[in-house]
């Protein structure tokens, strides 16, 4: 059984998104996805710039897979999790806390609210 916190929102590309207030949102990789990938060995981050919904933000690499992560809505990247550069496996060890990927900013909250709920994501991954 996967760990899918109720207070977060989710995408079909397995990102979780947390509303931090003030138009800031934190993005990470779900427990389910990190479990599928195995130990993450490298994270490639985006620059601090604007992205459109669906744009590739960066790449996560395990030993035998590499997956891109995407902008869930139009947004600007404002912070990245620098700890992952030295310790990318934090994504495996602590998917929803220490393993967060980036924080983005947007003025339009509708992108967030239209994302999948925990129930919908659970259904999506078929568990």
């Amino acid at each position, binding site marked *: 059984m996967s760990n899918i916190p109720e207070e977060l929102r989710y995408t079909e590309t397995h990102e979780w998104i947390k509303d931090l207030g003030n138009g800031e949102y934190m993005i990470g990789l779900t427990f389910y996805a990190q479990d599928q990938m*195995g*130990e993450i*060995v*490298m994270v490639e981050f985006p620059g601090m710039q604007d992205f459109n919904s669906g744009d590739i933000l960066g790449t996560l*690499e395990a*030993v*035998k897979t590499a997956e891109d992560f995407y902008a869930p809505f139009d947004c600007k990247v404002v912070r990245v999790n620098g700890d992952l550069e030295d310790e990318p496996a934090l994504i495996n060890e602590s998917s929803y806390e220490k393993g967060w990927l980036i924080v983005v900013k947007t003025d339009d909250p509708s992108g967030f609210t239209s994302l999948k709920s925990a129930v919908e994501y659970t259904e999506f991954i078929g568990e």
Partner: protein
Amino acid sequence: MKTVFELSSPGRMGVSLPELDVPAASEIPAFLSREGEGTTGLPEATEGQILRHYVNLSTMNHHVDKGMYPLGSCTMKYNPKLHEDLARIRGLSGIHPLVPSALAAGSLELMYRLGEFLCEITGFKGVSLQPAAGAQGEFCGIMLIKSYHESRGEPHRNEVLMPDSAHGTNPATSTLADCVVVGVESNEYGLVDPEDLRRKAGPNTALFMLTNPNTLGLFESRIEELTSIVHEAGGLNYMDGANMNALLGIAKPGEMGFDVCHLNLHKTFSTPHGGGGPGSGPVACSDELARFLPDPVVILDDDGSFRLRRKQDSFGRLLAFHGNTGVLYKAYAYIRTLGAEGLREVSENALINANYLKAKLGEYFDNPFDNGPCMHEFVLSGDRQAKQGVKTLDIAKRLLDYGFHAPTVYFPLIVHEAMMIEPTETESLEDLDSFVEAMVSIAGEAVEKPYLVTDAPVNTPVLRLDEVKAVKDLCIVEPVKEGGNP
């Protein structure tokens, strides 16, 4: 094992060289010289030490001459010993690639004849022997097709259609050739869905790239319909010939609507894989595409001599010289040894061997696409075992303990826990039965003693290796020891 650098001791030497027999010239100016950088760090050891080192290393390899190598899509068949000797005859191995054509008449005739054979086998008119491997053959094929579209005023055609079961080189080559990949779905039978192909083929289609038999080992029965859809949309059809071992003397790509295909001489035509190369990936094509072939091609001139020539509309060069000629020699020898009937016998037996294994293993492993005969290979799923906690990777490793190489695993991507098995025609019934016994035994272990499988391999020179560490603590060269080179 120690590395060769650890054998080093100053003053030892593995060769004897003659004294310099001409007067010495003035030395290279100091600012261009290596002086001051220290040594080159090459080892210093005797011939005997070095031989022992590499012979000991060699014993840690599995190889075709030792045992079965059922690696799907790789066609690991027996490599005839004579062919190694023939490629080493001094007149063939000791000749410079840029001599005037008349001085290389033997090599050129051999290459010309080989090209003719490959055209006959594939049903095409033009051929390039230059590509060094299958992936470079794919690149050559896409460049031919791009040149064709450009010549017709359609340079915008840049989409390569391919099924989701394609080899990784297909999408990678498309990117290299400045094209974009458009995926086409497979249907419930593991074959390309013609309706999806129809939806995706259009005014931007450059080509449709298909492996046939496909990577599930299945012949694309609706091939005529598929290639017609693409032609009607103005695109061309490319066959990845990685699986040509199924079709020798049985069917020709050129008659199925394909416009170009590459062949892997290091698979179908028994040239050895060399631990990863050199291969050779000749490309055969229709008359219409032949004028764009890479530089040079071998031609038979009006005066009866063989020459290298650049075609006027050639898209360019892929290698500095004419191809992996030494590999071409061996492929020619193979075809001459077998003749027409022998080639057909190869494919017949490849099909029989694969279908025999499929029949024998069907009871013990899942086969999601078992709707009739397979061609030269088939794909099982380890799903049943995975539910018991034994993954396909574990089964692969356990096979090593039984003295077999593992099948290709986790490919194609459309099968869960995939095991792609290709026995080739050179395995005897007795050896096939031993493989079946091993697989059945492992299927049993997966249920009764799963730890035997998940702990495997144990009978190999090293145990399961830590690939995560290899990436995280990257060590790709031997570090130089303190105080200078070792």
